[in-house]
């Protein structure tokens, strides 16, 4: 019976959508005999051209209704009314559309918060030195700026500015007599036996553990990783000749 009731309802929907009865019956041949009189009845029962109430009559009834409505005393909402209103609001918030809106709002808020936090940290880290808590944030911020710069000339200028910033950081560390692991790029000015001068900085080459790659010569651009000691001695750990060095 449930099966027939479903077929009947589907047939009625098709009928209301304008599908001819014979076409509907052809779709359900096993039930056609039983469906036919019901669908004819449904067709006759349909009211495609409902009579409209005259506007002046409707307006008169509306006026009568609103006059009586105006006489209703005002109602102060009770605690229960307020609770019900809250429940209705919550129920409306639990719909799929509302949840989607909430998700978008939360995502945008989180994204905005992250961007704002990144900007604030980047601003606070701009004067940090190697060994400081925010120094990593400063380097990440520089890498992001480099990766977001697509013009080759601008990128080279930015890299040059960052190299100068590294040298400046080391000079500040020396003035402050602080120890730190440092990294910088610069031109190999003088190449002594144990002491090299790179970009004006004197770099000590230890006998053990030093890595030198690319056989750098004076005038070459090199990448240096080293350790700055408190006695202002910069001990090299790795010196690599830049591949595009002249």
């Amino acid at each position, binding site marked *: 019976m449930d099966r027939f*009731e479903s077929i009947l309802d589907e047939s009625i929907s098709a009928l209301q959508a304008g599908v001819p009865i014979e076409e509907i019956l052809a779709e359900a041949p096993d039930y056609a005999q039983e469906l036919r009189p019901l669908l004819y009845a449904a067709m006759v029962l349909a009211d495609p051209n409902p009579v409209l109430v005259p506007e002046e009559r409707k307006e008169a009834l509306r006026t009568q*209704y609103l006059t009586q409505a105006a006489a209703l005393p005002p109602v102060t909402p009770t605690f229960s*009314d307020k609770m019900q209103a809250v429940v209705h609001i919550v129920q409306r918030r639990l719909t799929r559309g509302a949840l989607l809106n909430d998700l978008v709002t939360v995502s945008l808020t989180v994204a905005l918060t992250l961007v704002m936090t990144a900007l604030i940290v980047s601003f606070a880290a701009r004067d940090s030195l190697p060994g400081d808590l925010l120094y990593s944030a400063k380097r990440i911020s520089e890498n992001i700026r480099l990766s977001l710069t697509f013009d080759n000339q601008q990128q080279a200028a930015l890299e040059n500015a960052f190299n100068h910033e590294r040298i400046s950081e080391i000079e500040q560390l020396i003035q402050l007599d602080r120890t730190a692991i440092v990294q910088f790029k610069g031109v190999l000015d003088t190449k002594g036996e144990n002491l090299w001068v790179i970009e004006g900085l004197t770099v000590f080459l230890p006998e053990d553990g030093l890595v030198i790659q690319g056989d750098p010569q004076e005038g070459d651009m090199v990448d240096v990783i080293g350790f700055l000691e408190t006695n202002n001695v910069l001990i090299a750990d790795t010196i690599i000749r830049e591949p595009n060095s002249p």
Partner: protein
Amino acid sequence: MADEPSLLERIKRHDQQALAEVHDRYFNQIYHYINYRLGDSDTAADLAGEVFLALINALKNGKPPKTSLSGWLYAVARNLTADHIRQKVITVPLIEDLEAETPSLTDQIYIAQLTPTLKQAILELTDEQQHVIALRFGQGLSLTDTAEIMEKSVGAVKALQHRALASLARLMPLEVHQDG
């Protein structure tokens, strides 16, 4: 336009703007429902007016609709219509202008046979069956909307619709069935 639950909450507070919105939104539907069942547009307009005045009285007496506003309005319309049918002999109207449906010639002949029979047969239906017929075919409401207004399950309305149409078919002359 406010949704029905918030409209209901506002009319419970006697919000005049919400009360006006209720009339503007539901009057035509209620009028069509009553007119479908009575076939008397004058009486239908009067009774539709009474439905909305009943809403004002319910609010005045502190007995507003609890869950479904449209369900409450249709329930009052149904009771007023049933009362009116009990008091008077009603000729149930069915559409006169079938050209709008553009049925085939066979359909037209069948419908022509069926219409006067149905007019009598529909009066034999229970009030609940007439109610579901008026909502589904007079108002053109979906099964889900009809179920919501009648505060029944979709399955129950489906069964009720089937029984109503089957009763109409049974009440028709035998030769009409055989012609199909």
